[in-house]
């Protein structure tokens, strides 16, 4: 965090997003600038206060005159850029990404504790996914309810790895990490032992609060009851990284 004395060193650029002129600090990402200007770009793995993963690929944007797409979260703005965030091509790809996520694990919204408060569900709605064209993989995943307060249901995990990042970057516990690779990736606590037996988990619950779906939830919640609050994160992140 830079003090006020360095303000003069901040360079400001102007660019176009969806043909609107906007100005931005050079250090900002396309996604940040779009949000500041009220332009919504769907995203899932990105979260203010955590490092950039660039993994969900939902925030891909187009640059005028280029066929190559860029991840809005991981690309800095530049002078004169002409960004398009909502072309037909992007809408088609986003829809497919959400479909792939829905087919990958066993997301049964109607019986999910996060029903109605789920980012994946919202994305499906936003991207117009009225059905999934891909075969559901129907792979078997475990539910680990061994923790005193929390529960992890891998059937509903989208592998955004927000939990892994918040646990490492904010809480400093690094209880979570990802194991395996490809379609067999899974988040794990410690050596893939039950969460309740973890020595490193501090029980802070940040992972649960920022999980976008019903994968990480509090005990005692049933369908539609799990409410999450992510608003603490930017503040905490600022406080922890204060130099």
């Amino acid at each position, binding site marked *: 965090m830079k003090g006020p004395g360095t303000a003069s060193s901040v360079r400001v650029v102007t660019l176009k997003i969806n043909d609107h002129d906007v100005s931005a600090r050079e250090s900002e990402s396309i996604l940040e600038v779009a949000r500041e200007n009220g332009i919504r770009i769907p995203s899932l793995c990105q979260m203010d206060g955590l490092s950039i993963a660039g993994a969900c690929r939902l925030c891909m944007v187009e640059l005028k005159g280029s066929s190559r797409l860029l991840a809005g979260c991981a690309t800095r703005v530049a002078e004169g850029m002409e960004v398009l965030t909502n072309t037909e091509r992007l809408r088609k790809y986003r829809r497919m990404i959400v479909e792939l996520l829905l087919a990958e694990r066993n997301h049964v919204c109607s019986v999910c504790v996060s029903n109605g408060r789920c980012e994946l569900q919202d994305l499906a709605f936003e991207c117009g996914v009225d059905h999934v064209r891909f075969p559901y993989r129907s792979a078997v995943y475990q539910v680990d309810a061994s923790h005193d307060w929390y529960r992890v249901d891998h059937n509903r995990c989208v592998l955004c790895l927000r939990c892994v990042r918040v646990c490492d970057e904010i809480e400093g*516990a690094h209880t979570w990490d990802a194991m395996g690779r490809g379609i067999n990736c899974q988040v794990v606590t410690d050596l893939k032992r039950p969460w309740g037996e973890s020595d490193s988990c501090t029980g802070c619950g940040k992972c649960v609060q920022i999980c976008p779906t019903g994968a990480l939830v509090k005990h005692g919640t049933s369908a539609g009851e799990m409410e999450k609050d992510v608003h603490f994160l930017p503040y905490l992140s600022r406080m922890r990284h204060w130099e």
Partner: protein
Amino acid sequence: MTLTVQRPKPPSEDKRWKMIDVAMRRQGYSPHALIEVLHAVQNAFGYLDDDSMTYVAESLGLPLSKVYGVATFYHLFALKPQGEHTCVVCTGTACYIKGAGDLVDGIKQRFGVRLGETTEDKKLSILSARCIGACSIAPAAVIDGKVHGHLSVDELLARIEKVV
């Protein structure tokens, strides 16, 4: 002021832990040396178990889940003991074109194990390699570290039977 780092004790009296300690010392107990150290563990013990991963994690100052994540990311690390003998069937493109699939089927028929499995008597593990770079002598397999090329199913089975 000097900081003395308390290093954990090896999980057992087994002399092979000395090799692991040497490998870690050589790398200055740097967390970046994780993969090198896991190689050392696998070379010494044949596979990685919870004890060894915990020991490595504590020695290098790494979270357990990170060690587990790395160990399961790379195909060469095994989390279960392997058979006494191994046969690695190359499934690279050249071997595929020249019938690696038949070799795998032949092994399945004769020994009842598929790729990645170990026979019940723990004598033989069948593994696959993405390409061992011996494409010119495809199809190829590596039996206990020795490369054999231009294999027919019968030849491969005979060679395996010789060692098992």
